[in-house]
């Protein structure tokens, strides 16, 4: 009997050994090789994506490091004159006065919807073009003067005013009495990251128009002191 068992063991020793090696290899593959393959693939893919990102970053760096931003700073100042970052009621009144002087119309009344004065972020009117101050004006003058007034509202010589509604009555003398409803846009400066450093043709055209319209712009400094703790009543 013992001889028979020994014979069987002897007969299958290599087969059993092979099977055991196979099982050990399977276990080692699962516990060592597979994690190593995953780790390798993860590092490889991370390196590839980082290298790609670095190429983009290098492109940005080379673009922005050589960029002289002085022109952009000057452009922004000019843009803010037509589209300010705050409600700035004083400049709104100034702008309407300027339009009255340059067009020859007589403004009988001007109403600016003040909205919230306390904070800039408080509830404000806004539409698809941005936040705005609502204006209503009663204007008197000839048809030509009214047209001049309207053409100057968005000629970039000052804050943009968009007149959306007009109600005019024409007198026998040819004079026109008009009621205008308009919007004066503004918006907080949102610093937006951009990969573009070149203005598109449309943007450059508008920028050129703004610069041309403001070539003789003389900045008036507001040195008035109003109230306590505020620079003036209507701005932050």
């Amino acid at each position, binding site marked *: 009997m013992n001889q028979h068992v020994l014979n069987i063991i002897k*007969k299958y020793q*290599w*087969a*059993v*050994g*092979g*099977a*055991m*090696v*196979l099982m050990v*290899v*399977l276990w*080692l*593959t699962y516990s*060592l*090789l597979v994690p*190593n393959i995953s*780790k*390798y693939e993860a*590092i*490889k893919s991370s*390196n590839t994506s980082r*290298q790609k990102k*670095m190429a983009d*970053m290098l492109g*940005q*760096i080379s673009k*922005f*490091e050589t*960029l002289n*931003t002085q022109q*952009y700073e000057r*452009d922004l100042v000019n*843009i*803010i004159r*037509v*589209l300010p970052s705050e409600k700035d009621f004083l400049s709104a009144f100034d702008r309407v006065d300027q339009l009255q002087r340059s067009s020859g119309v007589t403004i009988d009344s001007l109403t600016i919807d003040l909205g919230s004065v306390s904070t800039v972020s408080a509830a404000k009117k806004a539409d*698809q073009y*941005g936040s705005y101050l609502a204006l209503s004006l009663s204007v008197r003058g000839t*048809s030509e003067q009214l*047209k001049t007034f309207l*053409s100057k509202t*968005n000629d970039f010589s000052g804050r943009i005013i*968009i007149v*959306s*509604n*007009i*109600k*005019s*009555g024409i007198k026998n003398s040819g004079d026109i009495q008009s009621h205008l409803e308009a919007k004066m846009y503004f*918006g907080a400066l*949102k*610093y*937006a*990251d*951009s*990969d*573009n450093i070149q*203005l598109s043709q449309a943007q450059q055209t508008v920028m050129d128009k*703004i610069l041309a319209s403001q070539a003789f712009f003389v900045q008036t400094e507001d040195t008035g002191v109003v109230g306590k703790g505020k620079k003036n009543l209507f701005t932050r």
Partner: protein
Amino acid sequence: MIEKRQLNLIILKDDELPILKSARKYLPIAGFISLAVFLCGYFYYYNNIVKISSVQEKIDSDYRMYEKRIENLRAKQQLTGTVISRLDQVIKLEKLPKQELTIDKIMSLEDYGVTVTGYTISDFEKISISMTASSSAALDNFVEAIHEKEKNKEFKEIFARSVVREKDGYYNFVLELKNGAAKTSG
């Protein structure tokens, strides 16, 4: 002297199952091959991980350096972004219809023998015009002219409210229409 030997001519019965026979034959080979493959694979990937890890360290340090450089350029990037987004907003506003051109179109109707006594423009598009014609012939001429304007796409959806004839023979009427795409030549 001849040695005596026994000769067994009975063939022993082979009762081993074929599967065990195959196992005995192939399992040692499979075990050996799998061990060899495992060892090759393990050392191959281990070696690669060591190599790629050193590359990764270099990439990481470069990446941090680039991030720092980008961070230093953030102000420039934001400035250009702000200028561009602001200009886009100005472009949108600039594209809105010019009301002075609409008034030009309205007043040009007087060329056809009528007198404009008032007008309303709502939301750039809806227009209502009050007019006076000195005679029915003038009114007739005007109707023809306004059809022409519609064909030229200066105005569209033209609708005339009732016409009132005054004691003095003048005709007062109100026209409701919409601003068309075409601009006046003037």
